[in-house]
């Protein structure tokens, strides 16, 4: 409770500083609106539904792309960990493409898919896939060989070993890879939405973009706040419980 109050206090002070900067007129009010104005923008866009709609569209793109990336990345990672041939080929490709900032996929996606949802999905999938492949591969390679040997003597065989021993043993690595994949997907989607105006739906990135076009700083800051909050929530709701479980089971320090 004390920690929570301190956190609240911290953000209150931050807002107060912002308010002070606005009143001191250090920057023009066009560039730095008051916290009040941003709050009002958020209130109106929340009541007229634009904010919710944009959030739903963005989250749908993100989730679909992320799940596709996971479904593709996990088996690919297992393949690269199991067979050297895959490691040398697909593994090297994954390593190379993972270092590519995912924004760099946007021009290619646009030329290939045009102004469509597919372009968005493609960018998100590319952001997710390679991190998951590499994390799964690393995780499997770090499984102590003794687990496999112990399972073998207990009568465990091929598929059973992979599902019941190797995969759970690699879980801490895989989860951190999933988390990284999520972060990459989120960043690449925002970049794509800012650059690509498509008519199939306005996401948060597009709202941000039009905020800039209209010099509506309250909108820009408001949407940025929403994006930050979504990122925080995803971390707290999606990954924190899993990570807490892993730390408790494995006895590692959080």
């Amino acid at each position, binding site marked *: 409770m004390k920690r929570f109050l301190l956190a609240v206090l911290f953000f209150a002070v931050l807002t107060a500083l912002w308010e002070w900067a606005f009143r001191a007129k250090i920057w023009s009010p066009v560039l730095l609106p008051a916290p009040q104005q941003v709050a009002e923008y958020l209130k109106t866009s929340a009541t007229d539904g634009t904010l919710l709609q944009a959030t739903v569209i963005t989250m749908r793109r993100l989730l679909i792309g992320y799940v596709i990336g996971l479904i593709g990345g996990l088996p690919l990672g297992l393949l690269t960990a199991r067979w050297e041939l895959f490691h040398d080929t697909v593994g090297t490709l994954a390593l190379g493409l993972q270092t590519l900032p995912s924004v760099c996929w946007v021009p290619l996606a646009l030329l290939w898919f045009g102004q469509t949802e597919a372009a968005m999905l493609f960018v998100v999938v590319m952001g997710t896939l390679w991190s998951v492949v590499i994390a799964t591969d690393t995780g499997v390679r770090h499984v102590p060989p003794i687990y496999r040997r112990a399972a073998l003597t207990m*009568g465990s065989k091929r598929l059973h070993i992979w599902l019941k021993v190797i995969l759970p*043993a690699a879980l801490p690595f895989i989860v951190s890879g999933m988390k990284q994949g999520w972060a990459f997907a989120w960043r690449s989607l925002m970049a794509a939405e800012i650059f690509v105006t498509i008519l199939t739906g306005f996401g948060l990135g597009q709202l941000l973009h039009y905020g800039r076009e209209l010099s509506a700083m309250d909108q820009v800051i408001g949407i940025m706040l929403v994006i930050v909050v979504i990122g925080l929530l995803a971390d707290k709701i999606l990954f924190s419980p899993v990570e807490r479980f892993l730390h408790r*089971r494995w006895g590692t320090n959080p």
Partner: protein
Amino acid sequence: MRFGHKTGSVTEELALVSPSKLAIDKVSKSFHSRAGTVLALDRVSLNVAEAEFVCIVGASGCGKSTLLNIIAGLEKPDSGTVLADGRPVTAPGRERLVMFQEPALFPWLDVLGNVLFPLKLKPNLTKKDRRDVAKYYLELVELTRFERANIHELSGGMKQRVALARALAPNPRVLLMDEPFAALDALTREQLYGDLQRIWKSRRKTIVFVTHNVREAVCLGDRVLLFSPHPGRVQEEFIIELPRPRDLNSVELATYASRITHALKSGAQSEAATAK
């Protein structure tokens, strides 16, 4: 096996005494590395009777662990045969379970989950049977209170006791133990010698126990085989005729141990002499 009579099948499962006999015939194995070829095992022959407790003692690197892995089916010999119950060993299987020096417990499962792991691989057991069997063995190693504990919360000795329960749970004919207590402190070890003898007697297992600790071997084994290194061979065999349960600190046990230690040292000396 009758169905619909669960308690009956559990008693049956627990009462089933399945002796086995191992016949190891002229097994050789060499390892190749950049430093050259090492003959780890040189035509080793050995027979283990049903419900016998055999200890293999030798300096580290004498090939005793390799022999154990070959009996387990985890490694293949270059030549020679291993028969378990008259059938050649080609792959690892749950009728010959291995206990390693590390507990090799699975950290993603709790204590009960670890003991259940081999039971889930055993057909013809209902969920309740498995739980009952697992709990029976946890009680045998006196860890019932810790069945919901995570592995990292256990001490070294408790981990090895869970590993023992996990190895015993699927009721293997043969238990292969590769220095399972080497990493434990003396006090815990002594307690586990008592546990192991008690369990061996009540469950009538065939045990092959590899160690470099001579007193441990004398305390546990019906027979102690002395291995000599480079190449790994059975140098000498000692029958231990001491009543059980044996006290690690008794004079009789120490007498046996000093005889074997003496033989071990003379073997090492003669090897050093030939090397020169």
